[in-house]
């Protein structure tokens, strides 16, 4: 059966586990990104982490990627806070400047190496089919740490997202919380870099949460739903790209296929949510008519 067969191959199985983990991780963080309307900030982080990835790889091979990316993420968070501190630069423009300048640094460093193009492609678009068990372990650790952190902080995070003034008045350290979220996003990027590359991580962060939100109004449903959407898109995306390659001889980039599946799921969720609301409205209307009669 084509939905399970490919995963008897070890490299496909590893890719699947990686994408399922990433789906759960990005789904959780993504809900917060959605609630705080931080899609652009997250997109910026995915691009500014790139030079960290490149320099880390340069200095310490595959193992250096993690720490380079983390350092870059923290630097970005700090610079962003400084740039927007006195409101002289709009947040949009500040983010765009950070994003492009740091990304350019990464490109310049890579372009000075040989094998420029293929390295660049690997960083930007990922190569999920070459994921190793060590990397799986790293992703698992990051997932557990980040999800646990967000679970522990869920109340202040919720309050801050809903009512920043009220949160401040209640003594919540808003600046610190925001930094925590930025670091969490940076960690997602770090974990996802190998699988889908820095460019497509934003899809993992934004789309599953948006799809889940279109289907439910309750956070207790939205968060697990986002994880489910993320994980199943990973699975389906792998199946599709495998079938295309083996069955039809068409090579489809796996990471990008996963993203396309995600966007398709988002579209479906949007339509389903729309229909559900219409049905709900018409039920309410007929109930009113009945009770008036």
């Amino acid at each position, binding site marked *: 059966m084509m939905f399970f067969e490919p995963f008897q191959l070890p490299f496909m199985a590893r890719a699947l586990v990686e994408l399922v983990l990433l789906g759960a991780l990005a789904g959780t963080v993504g809900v917060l990104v959605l609630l705080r309307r931080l899609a652009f900030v997250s997109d910026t982080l995915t691009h500014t982490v790139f030079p960290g990835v490149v320099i880390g790889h340069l200095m310490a091979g595959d193992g250096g990627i993690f720490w380079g990316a983390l350092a870059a993420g923290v630097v970005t968070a700090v610079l962003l806070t400084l740039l927007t501190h006195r409101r002289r630069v709009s947040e949009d423009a500040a983010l765009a400047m950070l994003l492009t300048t740091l990304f350019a640094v990464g490109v310049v460093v890579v372009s000075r190496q040989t094998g420029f193009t293929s390295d660049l492609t690997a960083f930007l678009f990922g190569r999920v089919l070459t994921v190793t068990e060590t990397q799986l372990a790293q992703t698992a650790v990051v997932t557990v740490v980040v999800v646990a952190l967000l679970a522990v902080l869920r109340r202040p995070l919720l309050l801050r*997202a*809903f*009512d920043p*003034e009220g949160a401040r*008045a*209640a003594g919540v350290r808003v600046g610190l919380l925001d930094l925590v979220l930025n670091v969490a996003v940076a960690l997602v990027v770090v974990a996802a870099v190998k699988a889908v590359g820095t460019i497509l991580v934003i899809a993992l962060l934004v789309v599953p949460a948006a799809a889940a939100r279109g289907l439910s*109004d309750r956070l207790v449903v939205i968060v697990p739903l986002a994880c489910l959407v993320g994980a199943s898109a990973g699975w389906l995306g792998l199946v599709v790209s495998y079938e295309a390659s083996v069955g039809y001889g068409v090579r489809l980039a796996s990471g990008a296929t996963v993203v396309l599946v995600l966007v398709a799921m988002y579209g479906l969720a949007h339509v389903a949510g729309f229909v559900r609301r219409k049905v709900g409205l018409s039920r309410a209307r007929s109930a009113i008519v009945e009770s008036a009669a």
Partner: protein
Amino acid sequence: MSERAPTLVLDRASVAYGDIPVLEELDGVVHEGEAVALIGPNGAGKSTFIKALLGLVPVVRGRIEVLGGPPAQARRDVAYVPQADTLDPDFPVSVEQVVMMGRYRRIGWLRRASAGDRAEVADALERVGLAGRARDRFGTLSGGQRQRVLLARAIAAKPRMLLLDEPFNGVDAVSQHALLEAIGSLKEQGASVVVSTHDLAIAHLACDEVCLLNHHQFGFGPTGDVLTPERLRATYGGHALELRGDRVIVTQT
């Protein structure tokens, strides 16, 4: 009035953001069970006043004492009610969950909400007249109802002082009545209330004292004594219009 303990003491206080003083020469006392109305034009510093009571803006001269100590230390027992229209109506949170946020301080980060917490939430919603809407999404309520939910959130926190930032702006009559009732019952239980408002009628109705603000304090004392046409004109920079003797309409806020 003199046997009741002071909950707020302003002693010739000035409050500043960085180098720029925003409020100067604040002076007055509020006791348990009393309500004071903050009245002044837009941009006068009413929100800053409230933030100062929360310890969020530094005092650069004089002294502000909340519940017997510096403002930041009193936060456990002070509840803040922001304006409801600053909140995102799409947010996936129920009325119940919003009110439960008022209990976070007591529950902490990790413990589950207890039956006692849930009872407090239900009671708070009852007090603002919204018990039947507990399960509805916050954004499905009207503006006035949302303001009541935010007051319920504050009530659930069992505060000794309540700070309300323009809660009556654009609120329907039913909600206004419910808000006033709830504030009244809180006063009876001994809490102090600081409420900023444009509505002089509300100040007369609900508040024992009035503080007239426009960067400087133009008066602080019993409502009847302080809400005079002359003082109002001074506070609003000459834009108050007198009507029917001692009742004043403010023409430009």
